[in-house]
């Protein structure tokens, strides 16, 4: 089933799997976000993946399909996570526009581009205890990997470890920042959500 290169089919397939993963953890993500934020992370992610699968973007241009998914995000709710995800997808779209197949080895590059764009959009930095830190972990773990199965498992392991590692640190961005000391020991919901996204892609 897994194609030799990254194509629009593999993207649509990934989105289907992510949908399953997100819906299974929606309540949990709401609760995690509710403890330090406004409790909507599960809701907004669920709404997004539902829309993804209802009207997936057409065509075989990888870049345009990624852009299509990004636009669905900007068209739904205005949550931070949604806007950041749209920003990341757009950055990846720029690098893949006009291509129908992208070597799996470029995934790490796409993650790098996404992370950089998201940091600019969020005026945030690595180490701020946000989704940026797990994207960087995935980028680093996927460097030079060419097989899709290995990509997913390397990314999943790195993301999980990074999420756990950051739990002990203070939040420096978003609504969670206001909790100061109380945030110590808690995992960042945005990191956990990304972990579930990557884990849905495990073979």
């Amino acid at each position, binding site marked *: 089933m897994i194609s030799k290169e990254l194509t629009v089919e593999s993207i649509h397939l990934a989105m289907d799997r992510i949908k399953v993963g997100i819906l299974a953890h929606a309540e949990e993500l709401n609760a995690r976000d509710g403890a330090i934020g406004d409790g909507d992370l599960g809701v907004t992610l669920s709404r997004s993946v539902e829309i993804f699968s209802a009207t997936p973007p057409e065509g075989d241009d990888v870049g345009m399909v990624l852009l299509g998914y990004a636009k669905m995000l*900007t068209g739904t709710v205005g*949550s*931070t996570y949604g*806007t950041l995800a749209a920003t990341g997808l757009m950055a990846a779209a720029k690098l893949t526009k006009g291509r129908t197949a992208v070597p799996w080895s470029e995934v790490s590059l796409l993650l790098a581009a996404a992370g950089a764009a998201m940091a600019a959009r969020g005026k945030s930095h690595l180490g701020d205890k946000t989704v940026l830190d797990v994207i960087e972990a995935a980028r680093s773990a996927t460097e030079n990997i060419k097989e899709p199965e290995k990509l997913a498992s390397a990314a999943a392991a790195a993301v999980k470890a990074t999420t756990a590692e950051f739990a002990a640190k203070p939040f420096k961005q978003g609504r969670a920042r*206001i909790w100061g000391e109380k945030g110590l020991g808690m995992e960042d919901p945005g990191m956990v959500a990304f972990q579930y996204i990557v884990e849905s892609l495990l073979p």
Partner: protein
Amino acid sequence: MKKLLNNPVDYVNEMLEGLAAAHPEYYKRIGADGRIIVRPDAPVKGKVGIVTGGGSGHLPVFTGYVGKGLLDACAIGDVFASPGVDLIYEAMKAVDGGAGVLCLYGNYGGDVMNFDMACEMAEMEDLKAKSVLVADDVASASFAERAKRRGIAGMVYCFKIAGAKADTGATLDEVTATAQKAADACHTMGVALTPCILPAAGRTTFTIGENEMEIGMGIHGEPGVRRGPLQTADEIAEEMLRMLLADVPLASGDRISVLCNSLGATPHEELYIVYRVVAKRLKELGVTVVAPLVGRYATSMEMAGMSITFCKLDAELEQLLLAPCSCPFLKV
């Protein structure tokens, strides 16, 4: 505290339905779910359009200030949540009368991201857009780091002044410069006494002891400068004035406007008790107060507490502040 609610999911849309039904001469709903309020006569040919946006639950902020001599449109998010990027961009398109659009909104992370992204979309489609962020909350960052301050009640002055400037036929650059000057002129200190209830969550935004107050707390419960036992109105007013005057030193002969704003539940009676202290202190300093506002201008639903905003005036700002404007919540 108790709320008059139906299904909390419908809270914002039902509110907007009532708003538009009550004041169709001021507000027209457009966009997905009618989540944009525009002036019925938008776009006004040749006039710079002014767009704001932000979370719901702060009426009259943000939506309420769409009106003549004020804002042209507002993109409306859920309670205390940003409006989506597309919504903002659609609002911008709806008010572009050819002279470009100023995005004028409060400095909150989510809003900044979404407005920035909408402005990038606008740029791609050759819609001229500029942004001015209101960052008036003295308690949220030092003067040296002003740009990090949150936007609170000072927004009302920025809407009024920028709206009046746009009405003069000024260019986008001119309206932007004046809006930025107004934003820089605004300094606000708040005090929170009780939280409010989030309709969807059914719970309060934060907790605070029965006899406590928090000076400088943000309108969503962001931590302030000092939490302590509830003091007298005069003591609280004096403390807030001290902080304001340290931020914006005033000298005899200066002219300012003052907004004594309730966060919701705090009644007019108490605002006037506080305003009395403000007026006395400014008089002692030889400062003239122009067109003060006392009331509920920027709220967090039924939160108890209040804020004091100083808007330091120069000749241009004063003239624009006194220029005519009209919406259901503010008429000059």
